[in-house]
């Protein structure tokens, strides 16, 4: 195993490491797509291609005791919060060695030890949970923050609104991180939201909001750090809006018949967060290729690990329905 097998949230801005981490996620997602198409991965999978900078930048700013909640599009969040590529891949394969012991799958990645409280496959479904985690921190006077990832589509859900209201009312240490990738499945932002500036959502609660370029990992890191500092100080929650792009179909298999092909190709060509960082760092092609290879090795190892994993024994079916 190399040091890349686990992304260790750095708590400092280290663009070089950001690049490595984003590459691991990208290669991971690309590999998942292939493995899924080959029928190795069951269920259905949503890739975060294009949104790596949000996951990596945000999680780098978190301290190890902070927690996150995630969504159906969860691989990047899980990896960025420190789950091993092996454990995540094994989960996607439904193996006992997976981060949810094969019970969860792609949409239900958990790693409680590393502060990942799990992902909700119900859109918006984890926002109350993040609020409750923040409430626990507040009641116990622990200097911890709960950060909830969610998409633009989730801002139409009632629970989003109720959670924002409650968190602001009680000045809870929470960060509501909205990844506006401009699509909710096949529905463009303009078809599910009457406003285009989603920070207006926060005005309904008088909540502090911040906006950041979600393709710029360093900016995401800084904005998240600022939001966390605000939340940790007791000043209340922050709505953090990351403007980003979905550089992939909604899920593997989605034909995107609803999306303009030219727009899609252009966006992919111009809005890749990895290419942007590579440029900013003025990385020689050779060095970049090397990093890519390293990331590929990590992912290849994870696939091998997952393939060799254990199928959960049907005799254990009823385990963990209840805690005793």
């Amino acid at each position, binding site marked *: 195993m190399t040091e890349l097998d686990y992304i260790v949230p750095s708590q400092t801005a280290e663009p070089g490491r950001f690049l490595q981490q984003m590459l691991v996620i990208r290669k991971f997602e690309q590999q998942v797509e292939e493995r899924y198409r080959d029928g190795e991965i069951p269920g259905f999978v949503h890739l975060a291609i294009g949104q790596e900078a949000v996951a990596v930048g945000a999680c780098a700013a978190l301290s190890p005791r902070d927690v996150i909640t995630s969504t159906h599009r969860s691989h990047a969040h899980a990896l960025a919060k420190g789950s091993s590529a092996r454990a995540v891949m094994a989960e996607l394969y439904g193996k006992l060695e997976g981060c949810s012991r094969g019970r969860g799958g792609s949409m*239900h990645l958990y790693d409680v030890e590393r502060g990942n409280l799990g992902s909700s496959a119900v859109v918006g479904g984890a926002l109350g949970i993040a609020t409750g985690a923040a409430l626990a921190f507040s009641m116990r006077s622990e200097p911890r923050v709960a950060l909830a990832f969610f998409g633009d589509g989730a801002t139409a859900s009632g629970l989003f609104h109720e959670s924002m209201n409650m968190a602001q009312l009680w000045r809870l240490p929470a960060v509501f991180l909205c990844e506006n990738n401009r699509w909710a499945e096949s529905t463009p932002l303009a078809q599910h939201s009457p406003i285009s500036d989603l920070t207006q959502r926060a005005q309904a609660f008088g909540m502090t909001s911040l906006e950041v370029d979600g393709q710029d990992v360093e900016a995401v890191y800084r904005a998240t750090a600022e939001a966390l500092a605000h939340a940790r100080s007791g000043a209340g929650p922050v709505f953090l809006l990351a403007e980003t792009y979905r550089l992939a179909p909604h899920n593997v298999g989605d034909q995107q018949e609803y999306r303009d092909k030219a727009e899609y190709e252009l966006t992919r060509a111009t809005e890749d967060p990895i290419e942007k960082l590579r440029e900013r760092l003025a990385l020689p092609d050779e060095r970049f290729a090397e990093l890519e290879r390293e990331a590929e090795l990590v992912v290849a190892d994870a696939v091998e690990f997952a393939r060799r994993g254990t199928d959960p024994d049907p005799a254990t079916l009823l385990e963990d329905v209840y805690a005793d």
Partner: protein
Amino acid sequence: MPTSTTTRFSYREAVRDAMSQAMRRDADVFIMGQDIAEHGGSQKVTLGMLEEFGPGRVRNSPISEMALTGAGIGAAMLGMRPIVEIMYEDFLTLAMEQLVNHAAKERYMSGGQLKVPLTVRTQGGAGWSSGAQHGQQTEGWFVGVPGLKVVYPSTPRDARGLLWSSIYDDNCVVFFEHVQLYNQREELPEEIEPIPLGKARIVRIGTDVTVVAIGPLVHEALAAAEQAEQEGISVEVIDPRTLQPLDEEAILESVRKTSRCVVAHEAVRRMGIGAEMAAVIQEKAFDWLDAPIERVGARFTPLPFAPGLEQASVPRREQVYAAIKRTVGSR
């Protein structure tokens, strides 16, 4: 005599055809739901409908299951016949308040002034590792809510004829489709034959055991019946199709003939519709029963992701077959 032309419809196409024919006939019928427009819905049931009917009548909606259902109720109260598609039945939990406290009760609470001719279509089911929040079966909850009707077709013909009747029913109907049935095919005439709500279908005639099954379990029950036939056990299979109102008479008549009964559904056994059926049957056909009514349903666990676990949790033909054997064995 002119032969009526028939076409091969998949269950998916049958559902679509009922909606499209109603929408062609009647400007008050329309559909709302997430990703039902260009995308054709997550299961492609509404594919092509946007082109025919336009975005005003094939309304792509925000991720707001509560308001979506509420808006369906409100439009229905004003005389429209909305169809609301809830992408997965797991998300009916979000619409529960609107369905239970409003759709079901507006007529009663208003002393008969209002009608709510709303159809809420949804789908789900196990078998493809969709995980614990995208595959549970929830039809049982709605059967116990006075004011709602509940439909769960198992074939293209039933899907089309029952959906038509649901759309034109003056009450709120919760209409369950099963993801594993969408590609089932059947030859159907072009013209829709409406199927009345509340009428069961005898799927297979037999004399030794009655299997009352719904949704995908109808097909599993048929397979189990074939297998049992090999051993000289004659199995009658009944599909109630509508769960509320429930065609108790059809079920009881069969059980009074066979004296043995298995009830089968994919939902968790505990508090599944099979519990209600067993309670009714033992109450009204007690003296005819030669053995306990066997219940077949999912194990008591959230739907697990790993394929092997998922398979072990939901019932298929083997479980129906085993139940048939048990009930005959206790002869």
